[in-house]
């Protein structure tokens, strides 16, 4: 099964616009989910803003080509706006201070809030009333939010940034927001826990990639837990969560029920 069918299959009344999807990984690398959503939304003709703080543009481009999209072409035709954190982070120090920069917080002694980053996102995804064919809903992808904690931003400031993105992109423009965050697990990282829990409370859908409890396996790379949280459809028994195991292949990811990997049967 593919991830799209897995997502749709669980929630019969799934409304796909105006949602905050939280990607989270624990003891494994969940970035394959970011690549999936990036190529998925580009293929669906949405306007995408990628805040890439972890990898360079060419990395996403190479993986995107395997998944069937060309990020360079998307960027040229205006469908994709990328903030390359690794490159532009250095620019902050060489620009005159008056010009606001999305990663302005890197320059401040105590990193304040992420308003400049939010302003960048808002300007990138603002729907324009031009005569040409409009893109489908705007989408914000952030890879990833945990690195902001390492750069000195407080968890409440990151939560505020996501709050504003939700208010503008999801609520006002009926677009989607997808963010990746890391679960620090047993290491007692209070800030990381506050960030993860705070984001979980704000999210409509949580996709959690976990390594297997028994360790590394060649044929089953991990387990994916899918949890639907909002909108509230209060019922006595909610079928809110599903678990699948997965294997990442060169051009796709295959999903199967727990214990049902073809390699172990």
């Amino acid at each position, binding site marked *: 099964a593919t991830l799209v069918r897995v997502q749709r299959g669980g929630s019969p009344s799934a409304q796909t616009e105006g949602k905050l999807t939280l990607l989270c990984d624990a003891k494994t690398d969940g970035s394959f989910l970011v690549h999936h959503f990036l190529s998925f939304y580009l293929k669906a003709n949405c306007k995408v803003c990628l805040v890439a703080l972890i990898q360079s543009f060419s990395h996403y481009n190479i993986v995107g080509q395997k998944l069937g999209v060309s990020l360079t072409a998307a960027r040229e035709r205006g469908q994709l706006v990328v903030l390359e954190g690794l490159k532009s982070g250095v620019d902050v120090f060489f620009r005159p201070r008056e010009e606001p920069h999305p990663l302005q917080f890197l320059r401040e002694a105590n990193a304040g809030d992420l308003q400049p980053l939010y302003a960048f996102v808002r300007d990138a995804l603002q729907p324009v009333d031009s005569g040409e064919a409009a893109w489908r809903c705007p989408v914000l992808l952030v890879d990833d939010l945990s690195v902001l904690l390492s750069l000195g931003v407080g968890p*409440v400031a990151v939560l505020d940034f996501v709050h504003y993105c939700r*208010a503008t992109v999801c*609520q006002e423009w009926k677009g989607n927001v997808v963010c990746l965050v890391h679960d620090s697990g047993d290491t007692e990282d209070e800030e990381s826990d*506050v960030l993860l829990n705070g984001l979980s*409370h*704000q999210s409509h859908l949580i996709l959690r990639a976990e390594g297997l409890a028994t360790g590394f396996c060649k044929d089953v790379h991990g387990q994916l837990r899918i949890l639907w949280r909002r909108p*509230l459809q*209060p019922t006595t*028994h909610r079928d809110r969560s599903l678990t699948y195991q997965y294997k990442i292949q060169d051009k796709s990811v295959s999903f199967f029920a727990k*214990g049902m990997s073809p390699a172990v049967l």
Partner: protein
Amino acid sequence: MLESLLAVGGLMLLRDSVEWEGRSLLKALVKKSALRGEQVHVLGCEVSEEEFREGFDSNINSRLVYHDLFRDPLSWSKPGKALPGGPLEALRALDKRTVSGPATIALDSLSWLLHHLPCPTLCQTLHALSRQDSCPGDTPPGEQVRVLGLLHEELHGPGPLGALSSLAQTEVTLSGMMGQASAQILCRRPRQRPTHQTQWFSILPDFSLELQAEPPLESQPRSDPHTPSVDPTTHLTFNLHLSKKEREAKDSLTLPFQFSSEKQQALLRPGLGQATSHIFYEPDAYDDLDQEDPDDDLDV
């Protein structure tokens, strides 16, 4: 007891978690208040007005005043859509709005307020808001103000949680088991002992509250309707099944270490033909066979 929660004024904390969310209970309590004819003010920080009002019918929505702190709480937008004065002023303004008549104030959520306001300030404002300055005897029950605060437990340390807990008249902690939600209710009345009760409940799509009995303790495995049950023995390369003859042979086998009555009899009667065991020993050339007990000379 969940039904009578709204009879008491003061501050009620709804403590929820990622797994057991509390917003639907908050909405159910808001609905109850509105149906009793009270004014309901909602300070919305975490969800939009549209989302909060969803599921309520028009006569409840007409009694509900939503103070929007969701769209632009920190005045980042130009032109500003923020409530003037920011979160603290918005909270204090609620105090002035509920001057006459019974009222319910819903704070969605206290966690957001706790992240953006200093804890002492928030506690002082809540104290004033829930009219705890006046003795309970002064205000007639009809004029009481109820403050419902949604609090996400995992987001705060023990200090702020303890401070809010000591301010609250009622604390409802949400949890559950196997898809069934429960509320642990701790009620503190003046000059009475705190009472503790657990109530299982569910919330219907129209946000009415339905009380439930405790689910039975033995877990009933619910078959998931979305994933078809798969028989794991279908595609194996080896045989896991037993034929009838094999099954009979297996059942009639006595295990060597199983202590059955026949074995017990055999051991108790070392009978005829049952030779006791012998040890045959060939001494080596250098062996010293001394028949005396080596422990004899010990003075124990």
